[in-house]
């Protein structure tokens, strides 16, 4: 990592951990904490979708894994009394495990065929949540206790959320930490050989196989990492909302995850993060347009895809003359 990038990263950390809370404190708009927490968590899910794009697959099924992750965490916390901080990785791992089972057959499909199957996944997850006894049907799981404290060797790393005077800021911090870690992992994947092989897969699977890449394994691996991100995002969401319903993540959410990636830029690791922020806030800001909200929103989306097919971040490339 060169100094310029390191500096950019430091500025970013300063902004999200210090400046944003200060700004919100100054303006008194505490509700922004909730909005930004959602943005951070959605961008974790979007990071996963982006990774599947990176191996050349259009993934419109992240909502399914977010829902499953939310339920796994909620069930473990409410019925088995497992501490939330343990259920977070467990939810991710569970999602990764089922994505391997689902991914093995469906990742053989390409293009629109894969996209169609993933689109169905979210609906399958919703219907399963309605039908399974353990998920408590349409009533969902409510009154999930707030995360307790996380301590390691007697050292309190995260205090119990119930004891905080303002749990909102706690959730915000936690979500942002999760987001930063996720994107560091993603950045590292993309810039290591693993990412190079993913790129080779995206550009030509046959050639990739001919140079000895186990394409089936790599596809499933990338999809499992993607679903892991979806699972932890969902688990965190359920914990913040203290509830989860079959309709917590629906097809529209899956589509949104994909749109975040498109908007930010499929060629840029931090594209989905920016895309999530712009799209989530854009939608909220457009609420002043009342009944024209959806019209303007979709119009702008179409325009952006026409003018900036490589995402908003491609503007940077143009400025530096790289494009």
């Amino acid at each position, binding site marked *: 990592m060169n100094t310029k990038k390191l500096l950019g990263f430091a500025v970013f950390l300063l902004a999200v951990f210090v400046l944003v809370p200060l700004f919100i404190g100054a303006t008194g708009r505490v509700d922004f904490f909730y909005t930004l927490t959602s943005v951070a968590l959605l961008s974790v899910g979007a990071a996963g979708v982006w990774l599947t794009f990176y191996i050349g697959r259009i993934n419109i099924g992240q909502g399914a894994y977010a829902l499953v992750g939310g339920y796994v965490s909620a069930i473990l916390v409410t019925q088995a009394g497992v501490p939330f901080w343990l259920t977070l990785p467990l939810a991710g791992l569970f999602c990764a495990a089922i994505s391997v089972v689902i991914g093995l057959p469906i990742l053989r499909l390409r293009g629109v065929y894969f996209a169609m199957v993933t689109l169905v996944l979210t609906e399958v997850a919703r219907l399963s949540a309605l039908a399974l006894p353990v998920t408590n049907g349409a009533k969902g799981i409510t009154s999930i206790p707030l995360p307790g404290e996380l301590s390691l060797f007697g050292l309190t790393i995260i205090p119990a959320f119930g004891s905080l005077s303002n749990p909102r800021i706690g959730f915000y911090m936690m979500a942002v930490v999760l987001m930063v870690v996720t994107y560091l992992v993603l950045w590292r994947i993309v810039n*290591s*050989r693993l990412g*190079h*092989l993913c790129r080779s897969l995206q550009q*030509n699977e*046959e050639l990739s196989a*001919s*140079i*000895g*890449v186990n394409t089936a394994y790599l596809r499933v691996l990338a999809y499992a990492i993607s679903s892991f991100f979806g699972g932890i995002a969902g688990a965190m969401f359920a914990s913040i909302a203290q509830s989860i319903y079959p309709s917590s993540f629906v097809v529209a959410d899956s589509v949104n995850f994909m749109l975040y990636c498109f908007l930010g830029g499929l060629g840029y690791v931090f594209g989905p993060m920016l895309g999530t922020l712009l799209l989530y806030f854009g939608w909220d800001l457009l609420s002043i347009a009342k009944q024209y909200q959806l019209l303007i929103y979709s119009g702008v989306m179409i325009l952006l895809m026409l003018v900036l097919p490589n995402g908003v971040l491609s503007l940077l490339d143009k400025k530096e003359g790289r494009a």
Partner: protein
Amino acid sequence: MSTILQIKNITKRYGGLTAVNDVSFDVNKGEILSVIGPNGAGKSTLFKLISSFVPATSGEVLFNGERISSLAPHKVARMGVVRTFQETTIFRSMTVRENIIVSHHLRSKASLFGFFLGTKQAKEDEAAFAASADDIVDFLGLQAIRNELASNLPQGHLRALGMAIGLATDPKVILLDEPFAGMNHDETMKMVGLVRRLRDERGVTVLLVEHDMPAVMKISDRIVCINFGQKLAEGTPQEIRENEKVIEAYLGSEDAAIGM
């Protein structure tokens, strides 16, 4: 000379159509063997069968006595039998050098997780790949375009890049798919020289499929001629040139086609 590759009674049927019918021949270590035949004779299918990109209906391919015909393509590549494609098959949005570096995958000693963590072994691997990639760039004379995006390359360079990708895997046997197609005489002669050096300097056994008869006659140690999916003849260029069945297969333009 020892046998490195044995093709034994291999057959491929697509529904009612028999693309390759009971073809057998051996490839000797260190030779340049060409497979020729008119359009639609089954050459390309035969190539895909040998590199295990399509499963055979019956018969088998042995590499150093080991059966490779039912393995996944990446496992065949791992054993050292690597195919190249025609020019459009490259990693388009990578530079020439990146194309070659990524193709070193088979030589990596570190695991993918090791690469993710950036272990010492992974760093050594990356350094070795970069050095070897530069070596291949020099070998194929691609210095001027090493940082060019692959999608911007003209046809002749794409063919060389395809070969570079193949070489990066450190193959024992390389399967070249029409390396001279669409080239003029000078380019063809340059490529002939390159393929020879592949064998002479890198010790790679070459198996190639080609239409360009003069080039095939010039380059090959032995030739296998197939037509309608069946082996017609096998022998040295001289024997093939004089084989009546072969002449018959190319009837109509016999002299010109066989390059006499």
